């Protein structure tokens, strides 16, 4: 009799699970009640993994459409300037060398933009599908920062921007040198891009019990509170900076890298302080 009742309930539970409507009937200390709760937990996690698959598929779709959208603009511009270039060149003696120079420069610029885009996308997809893995090991933060600074030094020099950093070789954290370098370069690159001519970028390290925080502060317009949560989205660019050169993938890549090392990244919005500030928290 008792057995039949239990079997009947188990059958009901299975039916409800198939319909996707299962909810526990009681909460008490009996084994059946505990089983019901575990059954619900299992269903929840399998729904979650299905949902994740679906999200993943959707992400891939938008990723592909993003790529085609993002590559279209530079390609169109290259095409346009190539035609202008050909036209100008066909004017033989009357051709303006200055114009030809200008068109060629523009083609080069767009080409660099495409190169950067494809390069970032390749890295991103390798990172996301695990072909390239991030292996955090204990490393010197000083070395990380110095390598990153040297990568953006020439760009900064062109805009007469100084980068200040007080070296301290004793600070260590757990990170993957190559990838974290990539992440920090993206942040510094942004700081250089949005800083005014002759500005100053400051890098400081703050120690916590669990994290080491790398602050990157600049004299640029900063990020509004509204944009603060959105700037890490793929291909997102702040509303006020649309005209600046860039593709909006750098910070997304940066956040992905830092997250894979159990760290995180934070924006200090520009209503709290003047200028821009991003903070990378690396696990110690």
């Amino acid at each position: 009799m008792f057995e039949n009742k239990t079997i009947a309930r188990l059958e009901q539970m299975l039916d409800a699970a198939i319909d996707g409507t299962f909810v526990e009937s009681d909460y008490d200390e009996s084994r059946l009640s505990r089983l019901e709760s575990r059954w619900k937990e299992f269903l929840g996690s399998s729904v979650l993994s299905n949902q994740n698959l679906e999200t993943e598929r959707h992400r891939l779709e938008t990723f592909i459409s993003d790529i085609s959208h993002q590559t279209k603009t530079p390609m169109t511009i290259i095409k346009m300037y190539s035609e202008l270039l050909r036209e100008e060149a066909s004017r033989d003696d009357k051709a303006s060398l200055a114009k030809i120079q200008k068109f060629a420069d523009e083609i080069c610029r767009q080409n660099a933009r495409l190169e950067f885009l494809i390069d970032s996308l390749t890295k991103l997809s390798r990172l996301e599908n695990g072909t390239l893995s991030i292996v955090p090991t204990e490393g010197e933060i000083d070395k990380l920062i110095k390598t990153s600074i040297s990568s953006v030094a020439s760009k900064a020099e062109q805009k007469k921007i100084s980068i200040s950093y007080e070296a301290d070789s004793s600070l260590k954290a757990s990170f993957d040198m190559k990838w974290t370098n990539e992440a920090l370069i993206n942040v510094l690159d942004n700081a250089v891009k949005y800083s005014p001519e002759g500005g100053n970028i400051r890098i400081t390290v703050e120690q916590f019990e669990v994290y080491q925080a790398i602050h990157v502060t600049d004299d640029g317009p900063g990020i509004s509170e509204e944009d603060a949560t959105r700037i890490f989205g793929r291909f997102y660019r702040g509303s006020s900076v649309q005209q600046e050169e860039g593709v909006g993938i750098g910070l997304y890549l940066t956040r992905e890298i830092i997250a894979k090392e159990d760290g995180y990244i934070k924006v200090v919005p520009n209503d709290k302080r003047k200028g821009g500030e991003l903070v990378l928290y690396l696990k110690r």
Partner: protein
Amino acid sequence: MSILEAKNLTKYYGEGDTLVKALDGVSLSVERGEFVSIIGTSGSGKSTLLHMLGGLDNPTSGTVIIDDKDISGLKGDELCIFRRRKIGFIFQSFNLVPSITVYDNIILPIQLDGKKPDKDHIDNVIETLGIESKKNVLPSKLSGGQQQRVAIARALASKPAIILADEPTGNLDSKTSQDVLGLLKTTGKKYNQTIVMITHNDEIAQMADRTIRIEDGHIFA
């Protein structure tokens, strides 16, 4: 798919001239895996709301649905068992049991439920929170920040449907707070854990994916 849903919640205290509407028609919904903060000043109704969401108190009217179950219908013991199985709490005051070790504190809710602890998961959580070396000591030997990390581990260990955190850094200095919030944020993502956090502080609220503002018992998205 939402894991937590509140519909038209009200909580009134007193009556007539002394009627206080602590919550006045609050509806919200939280998706699986989301980290949401509810921000409000003291007296805004945020703690009342958290108590309703966690089944620690009954609303005057309205419903709370957690993991598809309407908890308004649950009574006494049932509600108690429901909380133990479905909700991980993190309080301002840590609420660790002082007489047992850190590890035993972490597995306590699982043991109370008569389940076998998932050792791999728990070890992983302990390592991520950086408390491996404290496993066998008593909570009193730990700093405030470390105790709160243990409380986070305890909440994560049983893989609850949802974690409710009530001013989790209220008793910590700002530096330790940053550590604890960072861990809450990163572990939430790592273990796909839904988190609802109550705070009065804007900067703390910004650590979440989404912020809900509550003022005078009403919600502003």
